[in-house]
């Protein structure tokens, strides 16, 4: 696995995890998905430069592109951590959404 392939794999994990807490947000799942997205975005932010230079092709556009991606990754890591904190204090998803989800699930179980 080349560094570039590894970076794409981690980026995919980060994007999927981010989509899950942003779109399919469900209570405790938000902990897991925002935690995973924090770790993966942080990893991309920290090792992005390595990926750009260690790749075999040494493509010139790759380094500045990865530098830009590093800034975005750091920002996304912070957003993920904010979401994790909000979930811990019961603010995301909102208490109303939580209650609605719990009721919905309870109804499904009783059917």
């Amino acid at each position, binding site marked *: 696995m080349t560094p570039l392939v590894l970076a794409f794999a981690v980026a995919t994990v980060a994007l999927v995890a981010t989509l899950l807490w942003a779109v399919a947000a469900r209570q405790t799942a938000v902990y897991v998905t925002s935690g995973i997205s924090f770790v993966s975005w942080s990893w991309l*932010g*920290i*090792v*992005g*430069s*390595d990926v750009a*230079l260690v790749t075999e092709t040494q493509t010139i556009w790759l380094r500045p592109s990865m530098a830009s991606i590093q800034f975005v990754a750091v920002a996304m890591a912070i957003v993920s951590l904010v979401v994790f904190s909000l979930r811990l204090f019961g603010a995301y998803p909102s208490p109303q959404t939580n209650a609605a989800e719990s009721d919905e699930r309870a109804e499904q179980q009783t059917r």
Partner: protein
Amino acid sequence: MSDGDTVAQLAVVILLLGLAVPGLATAHEYAGTPIDYEQSATVDFASATAVDETATVERYGDEVSVLVAGGGELEAAIDYRWDDESGEIEWFNTTATSSGQDVTIAYQAHQRTPETEMAWTIISPFFALFGIFGLVAAVRTLWSYIAEVFEA
């Protein structure tokens, strides 16, 4: 999973604490891209010569080349010994070397880029928050258990 599943919440917080911090710290420790340097130096049999680049170095390249002023190259392991851990060259007294001889050292340092340092500077202070997260999750779990005992 209900919102009252505090054990699951505590488990997730502990996992994040247990895996993220050492994982990201290791990623930062080993982050380094190879950058080529050259510097002038003087052969000194009495003391080793340290290379100039020491900032944000993850490690040095396995080999260096030492070019003699006026042409020619010194031979590794015969005329000098390169320590890729400390970044120092120990000089040996041979027919090719002489004390005070001007040389040029070409070496490679695996260094963290400014972007990587920036990312680490921003992200690492947040690790301190994980302790607060763990404490909050632990207190909630304990509180939940106590409430269950009193309800029973």
